[in-house]
Structures are given as structure tokens and as C-alpha cells.
């Protein structure tokens, strides 16, 4: 068993990256963060804050959306990874679970999972063992193994997408918005499994999430992004207690509940970085 707590060893280092889409749209304006081995690191923020872009910059899926990293550097285990193909990164142990699931709709659940092992060269036996492992973490997928993924429920598709990533034997999973469109109960279930995977299989996670409440309960460390900048970071437990985070992201404040209109005007006055 691996220790649940993150180690000091940093796997992924991002320093001061800037991302521009289509040569004109500046999305990230200098984001720095680090993902320790064995931890769950949360990347929080509202719509358009740059969470997904950050993940895609790491996994090099930006190129296919005409985005590019124009400044800063991204390194994995001390090695620059900016010029690698997504496939090479998967071989190095970094895989992304994309926002909105993106299962292969016309493939069965089992075929979907098997595509995750595409880059592996360690033989059928090892892949079959991992398939069994995925089914043990997600028993629902075992039941639906012969169904076309397109006809399964949103929760099952999310599980399928995570399971598919696990089939590549990753060291680090970039998990984008796993709670999207799911019932609170299911969100809990999926985060519970993520926690399990982190503790038992030693998989490190970088988790982009809008659901601040859930994310901060399961993560070890958190970064808060706003308009392409990291505005705050700290251990998850501290962030949960921070009055600004409470007010802006958890909907709680000293004076009790406020009307939405007041929050907006308050927000205009008080900017994160002054």
C-alpha cells in the first residue's frame, strides 16, 4: 500500500505558461503550479478561468485546437514535454480524461477500455489483469461491458472514461471536470473511487473542477484560477477555511446567505489581486 499523502517529489512542474488560441486569444496569462507524486491536486475556478486549457497544455492536446504555449515551460520528471505528441506523453505515464467524457460512442464499454491500452507493449496478460482491476473499481462497467458506450448513462460514461485512462497504466491522470452533469450522489461515488485509486494504486491526479466543495474535500492541495491566472493556492484544508474562497466559491459568508445581486457588486469592488 502506498501512503495516501502526497510526497515531496514533484512530478509535474508548470512555470509561468502563457497560452494563445488562434494566434490572438490569450487564455492563460502566466500559470505556475506543481503536482506532487501521489497527491490529488485540484485546479479550481469558474467557467473560462483556464482550467481545461491548462490541462490541455500539459497533455499537448492544444495543438489540435490551434492553441499554443507561447511562454513558460512544462516539465515532467524534470524533462521538458512541450514538444511531445500526446501519444508519447501517454507512454510516459501522463494521460488526460477529457471534459464531457468523450467515450467512443459506437464501441462497447469493454472496447472503450481496451483502447486505453493502445500504447502498451507489455503483453495481453498484463492488460487483462488491468481490465479486471478497472472492473473491480467500477463494478457497473462490468455489468455494461457489452453495451455500446453511447447508450450508457452519463455516470457510466464518466466511469468508462476514467477506466479507459487507467488502462494505460498511468502515473498521473489529468482529470477534467468529472462532476459535469452528474447527480450529487454519483459525483460522490466517482470522487470516492478517485480517492481509492490515489491511495491504493498510487496514481497522482491533477483535477480540474468547478465543484469547489467536493474537490476541496477530496484533494490534498488546491490552486484557484481566475481569468488565466493563479490567484490563490494552498493545502485543501486551508483553502476550505479561507473566507474569500468560502464566499466566492462555496457560497458561505460571515453574514449568512446573500442575494446574488449583492454578491456581484461586492465582487466588483473586491478583486482578487487588488
Amino acid at each position, binding site marked *: 500500500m502506498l501512503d495516501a499523502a502526497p510526497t515531496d517529489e514533484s512530478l509535474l512542474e508548470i512555470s509561468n505558461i502563457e497560452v494563445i488560441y488562434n494566434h490572438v486569444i490569450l487564455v492563460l496569462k502566466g500559470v505556475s503550479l506543481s503536482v506532487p507524486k501521489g497527491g490529488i491536486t485540484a485546479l479550481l475556478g469558474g467557467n473560462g478561468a483556464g482550467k481545461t486549457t491548462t490541462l490541455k497544455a500539459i497533455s499537448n492536446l492544444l495543438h489540435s485546437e490551434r492553441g499554443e504555449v507561447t511562454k513558460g515551460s512544462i516539465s515532467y520528471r524534470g524533462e521538458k514535454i512541450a514538444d511531445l505528441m500526446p501519444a508519447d506523453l501517454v507512454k510516459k505515464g501522463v494521460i488526460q*480524461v477529457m471534459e464531457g467524457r468523450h*467515450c*467512443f460512442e459506437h464501441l462497447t464499454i469493454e472496447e472503450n477500455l481496451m483502447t486505453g491500452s493502445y*500504447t502498451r507493449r507489455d503483453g495481453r496478460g498484463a492488460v487483462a489483469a488491468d481490465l479486471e482491476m478497472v472492473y473491480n473499481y467500477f463494478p457497473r462497467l462490468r455489468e455494461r461491458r457489452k453495451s455500446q458506450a453511447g447508450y450508457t448513462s452519463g455516470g457510466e460514461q464518466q466511469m468508462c472514461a476514467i477506466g479507459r485512462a487507467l488502462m494505460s497504466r498511468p502515473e498521473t491522470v489529468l482529470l477534467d471536470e468529472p462532476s459535469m452533469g452528474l447527480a450529487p450522489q454519483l459525483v460522490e461515488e466517482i470522487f470516492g473511487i478517485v480517492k481509492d485509486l490515489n491511495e491504493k494504486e498510487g496514481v497522482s491526479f491533477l483535477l480540474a473542477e468547478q465543484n469547489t466543495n467536493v474537490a476541496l474535500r477530496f484533494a490534498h492541495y488546491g490552486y484557484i484560477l481566475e481569468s488565466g491566472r493563479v490567484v490563490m493556492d494552498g493545502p485543501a484544508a486551508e483553502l476550505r477555511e479561507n473566507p474569500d474562497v468560502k464566499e466566492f466559491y462555496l457560497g458561505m459568508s460571515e453574514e449568512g446567505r446573500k442575494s446574488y445581486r449583492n454578491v456581484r457588486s461586492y465582487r466588483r469592488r473586491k478583486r482578487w489581486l487588488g
Partner: protein
Amino acid sequence: MSADFWFGVEVFLNGLMAGVMYSLVALGFVLIFKASGIFNYAQGVMALFAAQTLVGLQTGLIPFSHLINAIFGTEFHHFGQAAPDWWIETYSRGLSVLLPESISLSIAGFLGFYGPTILAIIFAALVMLFFAILVEKLVLKHLVNQEPIILFMATIGLAFFMEGFGELMWGSDVKTLDIGIEQGGNVWFEEKTSFLGGEDFYGFYLDTLDIYATFIAVALVLALVLFSQYTKTGRALRAVADDHQAALSVGISLRTIWVIVWTIAGFVALVAGMMWGAKSGVQFSLSLIALKALPVLMLGGFTSIPGAIIGGLIIGVGEKMFEFLIGAPYLGGATENWFAYMLALLFLVFRPQGLFGEKIIERV
């Protein structure tokens, strides 16, 4: 049963076999469309180019001989005679050490007769593989994530280029392609079936080449289906067809997949070009068989391999039966030329995704 009925059956069978040929061409379109969302305008020209290469290799033509002759004033044409007799003799003598003479002779005879064709097919397949790699490196790689219409225009350019390149390489004259399968009615089949009708009925007239083409096409389709259903690469192909981004994210390299798909489409074009070329000669009009594939695709759906096959069969049988039952007696004949397009038009109006087009999975 009257002779008329059996004559109708014969038309039906001929329609089925013509349909298989249409399916073969349509298959190439479906493969590329599924994997990359590109409507490959060059598919017909690919078939022509493959057939030209096949003839060239088989008959020992010197590539670019016209160009070389024009520049240097030389008179090159052929490398020499294909498969000389001494080759067969040496071969049979070598084999007779291991095998009884009668068997070794027949093997050597077979190789002497078919050897050049088999070699030429293998080399033509390699050329198509090389071509696929070039297309990926020079064209597709630079057009990742462009609009479908831009990719479509790129394939139009590709078609014109290949058309010219093929003629530059092998000459623009009409070539006959002899792959060792005789043409004309199959006598054996005709005799065996003549008992069915009355005195007026002489048995089914089926073209031997068509019969072979049917078997080859069926084998090809089976191989393709097995490949895409049961191999890792096949699964990756289907994954890419479903979702490019997700395929990238799990580490499937789109560029490799594109090379594989274009290679397979090249092989399909080679088989189609070989069969059509053997039937009606290798010449520019061969590239127009792609036009016949369009109604097949509209019927079967652009994204379905079974659709391409069944669509082809329906068009083949439909146009032959329509001509037989309605066209010739009531409309003055020659309906075969337009029937397929009329049918496709009806389908576009009433069922635009085709018979077997991939259902758009929408969860509510």
C-alpha cells in the same frame, strides 16, 4: 417455370455481381470517410493509378519512359519479356527434387503463368502503401483540424495530380489488363443450369470474371470486417472514427491511423481497379467508376461498411431488374445509366442518412 422467369433470375444474378463491383469502389470511400471525415474525391483516380501500376509492373513497362525518351531521344519501352520459358523450366526442375514431377510441373506452370501477375499485385500494393505515406506526409499532416470542405478540396487536387502523374509514369494509352482470368460466359455454369428452364432456356449466362470478382470482393470485405472488429489496430480505427480528440488523448496517433486507412483504401482501390480494368481496359474512364459509387454511398450511408456492400447490391440488382422489367419493355431501354441516381435522389429526400448510416446516438 417458364424460360422468362429463369431469364429474370439470370438478370438478378448479373445485377448482384455488378453490385459487388460497385460496393468495392464504395468501400474505399467509406473507409476514409469514417476514419478522417474526408470525402476522398481521389478514390476513383486511385483505382486508375493502381490499375496502371499493376499493368505497368506486370508487363514490365519502364516508368516515365515517355519522359525519358522525350528528353534524351531514346527509345525505351519495356524491360523485356515477362516470365520466359527457361524460368519455368528451371523452377520445375528445382521443385522436382522435392516433389513428384507432375506436381512440380503444374506448380511451375502456375507460377510461370500467374507469377508475374502475383508479383505485380504485391508490388502494386507496396506502391499504394508508399502513396499513403506520401499523402499523409505532404497533404494531411498540414491540414489537421481544417474544415471538411478544405480537406475535400485537397483531395480534388490530389485527384488531378495523380491522374497526371499516373499518365506521366505509365503513358496515357489504353492498356489491357490480363490477370489470367478468362472473360465471357462461364460455360460450365451455363451447362449445369440449363436443365432449369424449358427448351428455350440455355442456362445462366454469367461472366467468369464477374464470378471471380464476386469471390474476391467477398473475401476482401470479410477480411476488412475481421480486421476492424478483432484487432487492436482495427479497434483504434473505429475509435478514431468516433472521436478524434478522445483517440488522441488515449495515445492513438492520428497520423499512423491515417496512413493505415489510406493504405487500406489503396488496397481496395487496387482490387477495384484490377477487376474493372480487366473488364473494360485500363484507361482514364476507369477513374469515373467513382461516380457509380456515389449513389451506392447515398443508399448505404457514408459511414457503414455493410451499408456500402448492401447499397452496392441494391443498386446493381435494381438497375438490372428495372431495365429488364420496366426499362426495356416500356421506356425504350438504357435506363441503367440513370436509375442509380434516381434511386439515390429518392433516398436523399426520404432517408438522408442512408439505409445503414451510423445512427447519431442521442441520449435524451
